[in-house]
C-alpha cells in the first residue's frame, strides 16, 4: 500500500529496517497532517498540526502507564514494599511526563539551577574536553565518532554540571540506555521491557538517593546541590522522590540526545563535503549549521502525548484518550512550512524547527546542547584530516525516537 490511509506507516517508522532513512515514510504520513494508525494512535506529522497540538492544553504529557513491579514471590515485597514504591513513582514522575501546574513548579526549580552563567561557564571546559578526546586519538587512522567523542563529551559535561562522579559512568551508562526506552512507544505495552525499566529505575533511584544525601550534607557548586538545598517561594523545597526523578531525567537527557546531535551532525556534513569545508573555513557558520541540523536530522524524532478531550485538528478529530505522537522530524521537513525542506541549507533565513520540541516542554538543555555541538563540530571540522565515512549508512541504535548511529567509523589521515 502506498496511500496515506495506510495505517501501518508509523509501525514502519518504528521498524529498525527503516531507521537509516525514515524520511520517505514521513512524507507519506504528512499527506494527512494528523493520521490515525491501525492501533488507534494518532500521528501528527504536519508542521502546523504539531505546533497547534504542542500548545493545546487538552494534550497531556502524562501518558506513562502506572508503575508496576512484576511479582517476585516474596509476599512482603509483592504486597507492601513494591506497591508503595509504585505509588510513589506514579506521583513523582519527572517533569517531562507531567502537566501543569506541577510541571511548571518542577521545571522552574530546574531552570533556577540551569543558569546562563552556569551553562556559559561550561563553554571553555567543553572545548577543552573536545580537545582531550581528539588528543587521545592522535596518530590513529580510524576514529569512531560515537565512542571517541560524541558519547564521552556530553556524559562528562552533564556529570560535572550535575555533580555526579564521572567514575560512576559505567554504572549509569547501562541504566541510562535502558531508561531512555521510556521515550519509545514500545515501552508502554511490552511487559518484559517495562519490568526491566522498573528494575533499572529502582537501581538508579537508590544511587541518586545516596548521592543527594551526600549533596545535602556537603553542598558543592553543582546543580544537584542547588536542587537539593534551594527553596522555591511557591513550591518550597523539592521532595526527595521529585528530586530523584528530576536528577535521573537530567542525567539521561543530558547525554542520550546530544550524542545524536553530534553524530548525526558529522554524518550529515561528511555526506556533504562542501558544507564541511565551509565550516572548516568559517567556524562562525557553526550556529547556522547546528540550527539546520536540528531541523534536518533532529536528535529526538518524536514525543508521545495523550488527548484529554476530543480535539478537532487538521480536518480530523482526535478522540478523548487517544495516544498521540508528535512527529517533530516530519514537521521539520514539511514543505508547507520550509521551502525545499529536504535540502540541507544552513543559510535558511526562517528556521523555526522542532529540534528541541516546543511550548511548555521545550528542551531545558537547549543552550547546553548548542554549546556542546558547536565545540564538537567546529573542532572536528578543523582538526580531522581528510575524514571519510567508513560505512554509509552506519548501524543505528534501536530507538526510533532517540534516533542516531550506534557507531560512526571514519577513516582519517590524522588529527591536526
Amino acid at each position, binding site marked *: 500500500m502506498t496511500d496515506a490511509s495506510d495505517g501501518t506507516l508509523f509501525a514502519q517508522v518504528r521498524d529498525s529496517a527503516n531507521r537509516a532513512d525514515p524520511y520517505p515514510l514521513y512524507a507519506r504520513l504528512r499527506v494527512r497532517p494528523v493520521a490515525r494508525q491501525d492501533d488507534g494512535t494518532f500521528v501528527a506529522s504536519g508542521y502546523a498540526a504539531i505546533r497547534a497540538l504542542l500548545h*493545546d*492544553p487538552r494534550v497531556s504529557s502524562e501518558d506513562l502507564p502506572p508503575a508496576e513491579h512484576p511479582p517476585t514471590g516474596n509476599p512482603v515485597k509483592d504486597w507492601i514494599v513494591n506497591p508503595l514504591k509504585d505509588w510513589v513513582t506514579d506521583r513523582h514522575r519527572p517533569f517531562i511526563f507531567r502537566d501543569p501546574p506541577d510541571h511548571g513548579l518542577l521545571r522552574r526549580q530546574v531552570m533556577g539551577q540551569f543558569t546562563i552563567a552556569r551553562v556559559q561557564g561550561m563553554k571553555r571546559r567543553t572545548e577543552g574536553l573536545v580537545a582531550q578526546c581528539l588528543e587521545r586519538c592522535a596518530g590513529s587512522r580510524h576514529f569512531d565518532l560515537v565512542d571517541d567523542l560524541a558519547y564521552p563529551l556530553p556524559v562528562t559535561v552533564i556529570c560535572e554540571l550535575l555533580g555526579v562522579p564521572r567514575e560512576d559512568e559505567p554504572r549509569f551508562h547501562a541504566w541510562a540506555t535502558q531508561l531512555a526506552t521510556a521515550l519509545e512507544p514500545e515501552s508502554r505495552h511490552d511487559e518484559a521491557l517495562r519490568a526491566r525499566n522498573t528494575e533499572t529505575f529502582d537501581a538508579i533511584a537508590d544511587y541518586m538517593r545516596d548521592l543527594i544525601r551526600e549533596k545535602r550534607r556537603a553542598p558543592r557548586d553543582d546543580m544537584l546541590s542547588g536542587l537539593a538545598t534551594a527553596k522555591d517561594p511557591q513550591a518550597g523545597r523539592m521532595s526527595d522522590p521529585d528530586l530523584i526523578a528530576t536528577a535521573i531525567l537530567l542525567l539521561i537527557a543530558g547525554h542520550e540526545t546530544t550524542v545524536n546531535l553530534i553524530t548525526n551532525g558529522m554524518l550529515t556534513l561528511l555526506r556533504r563535503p562542501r558544507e564541511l569545508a565551509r565550516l572548516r573555513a568559517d567556524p562562525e557558520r557553526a550556529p547556522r549549521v547546528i540550527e539546520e541540523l536540528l531541523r534536518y536530522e533532529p536528535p529526538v524524532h518524536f514525543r508521545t502525548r495523550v488527548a484529554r478531550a476530543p480535539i478537532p485538528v487538521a480536518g480530523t478529530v482526535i478522540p478523548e484518550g487517544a495516544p498521540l505522537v508528535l512527529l517533530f522530524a516530519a514537521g521539520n521537513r514539511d514543505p508547507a512550512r520550509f521551502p525545499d525542506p529536504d535540502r540541507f541549507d544552513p543559510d535558511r533565513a526562517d528556521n523555526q524547527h522542532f529540534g528541541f520540541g516546543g511550548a511548555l516542554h521545550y528542551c531545558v538543555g537547549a543552550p547546553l546542547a548548542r554549546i556542546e555541538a558547536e565545540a564538537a563540530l567546529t573542532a572536528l571540522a578543523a582538526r580531522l584530516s581528510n575524514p571519510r565515512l567508513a560505512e554509509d549508512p552506519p548501524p543505528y541504535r534501536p530507538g526510533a525516537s532517540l534516533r542516531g548511529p550506534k557507531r560512526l567509523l571514519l577513516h582519517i589521515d590524522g588529527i591536526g
Partner: protein
Amino acid sequence: MRDGTIVVAGASLAGLRGAEALRAHGFAGRLILVGDEPHLAYDRPPLSKHVLTGEVAPGATTLPGVGALEAEWRLGVKALGLDRAGRTLLLADGERLAFDRLLIATGARARPWPAPEEARLSGVHTLRSRDDAASLAAGLAARPRRVLILGAGFIGCEAASSIRALGLPVTVVDPEPAPLAQALGSVIGGFVAGRMEAAGVDVRLGARVTHLEGDRAVRRARLADGGTIEADLVVVALGAVRNTGWLAGAGLRADEGGLSSDGACRALDEAGRPDEAIFAAGDVARFPHPLYGHRPVALEHWGNAVAQGAHAARAMLHGADAVGAYAELPAFWSSQFGLNIKSLGLTEGADAVAIVQGSPRAGRFLAVYGRAGRTIAAVSVNAGRWLPAYEGPIRDGAPFPPITGGADQPDPEPVPPGLPSREAA
C-alpha cells in the same frame, strides 16, 4: 514591477520593514524613505520600559538592518502634501518627489493634553518618540516629588511600572473603572490594578483630571470632583492620533482615525475606490479585517507594522490580486509590574471572558474572550507559552468557551469582560 521609483512616507518600523520587503522581493529601482524625525528608524517598545529605567540609552534603540538597506533617506523632513494626480509627494523643505508607487506609513503621534497652554507647562510630557522618552528620562533623573500619569492604557501603565521601579511616587488617573479597560476589560484590568497597587502606585480609577496648574512648571492637577493632586511631572498618556493631517485635500479617505485602505493595503479615495499607486501600512492604516467581519480597524501593534509593511510591499510589486487580503491575526505584548501580557485577536465587542488556564491567584493565567458564543481573542498573563494554542480557535471562530477538558483545569466559567461601551470611548 522591478524598476521605477518608490517613495515611502514614514521611516519608522512599518516603512522600514516595507522597504526591506521591497528589496527582498526584487525591487531594483529607486527607493526613497522620508521621515519627519532626524533619527534612523528605532524600536518604540523599549521607550516606555528600559529607556525610562535607564537600562537602555534612548539612542541605543535603532532598529537592526537600517544601515543595510539600499535606499535614499530624507530624514528630519516632514511630508507636507500629496498630489495624487501628479504622483508627487511634497516635502517641507520644498523638494517634490515624483513616484510610481507610494507607501504611506506616517504612523501616529501622542494625543496631546487638550488645553495647549497647560500642555506647554514645563514638566508635562507625552511618550511616543525617542525624543519624548529622552526628555521624560531627563525629567525623571531630577527626582520629581510625584509623577502623575494621565491615562491607564498600555503606555500609561508601562510608564507607571518603569517610574515606580526608579523609586519615585506615582499616581495614575483614568476615568475607566480599571486600567487597560479599553483593551482587556475590567476583569483582567482589575487584576493588573491589584499589581499596580501592590507596587505602590496610587491608582485613581473613575476619576478625571480637568486642569493642569502651575506657572511655567506644572504644580498640580485638578480633578473633576474638585480634588487636587500635587505633582511636578505629568505624563499625558491619552492614546494616539493618526498622522493624516498632511493628506488633507489629497482626495483620500483619511481622518484622525487613520487612512482607509483595502485588504491589499491600497489607499481608498473619498469615493472608496482603491488607488493603484498608493498604499498604507502600520499604525496609520485603517483596513477591513476579514476575521472581524471586514470591520475597518487601525492597529497600533508592533507586529502589525512589520507584517503589514511587508504585505503592502508585495502588493506594490506583484499587484493586489497576487497577495490576497491582509489577514494577520492582531497580536501585541506588554511588560509591566512583573507581568508579561500577550494578546491575540481583538477583544472589542466581546460579551464574555473566561479564564481557561491557570488562575489570577497563581499569578499566571490565560483568558479567552467570546462574542455571541464564538472565540474572538485570548490574553495571557505570565503564560505566553500557552497562547499559540488559541490562534486556531480564534481564526476558526471556534465555539466559546473553546477549551474543555484541559489537562490542568476544570471547565471555565465565563463572566462579562467589563469592556467600556464604544460611546464611552
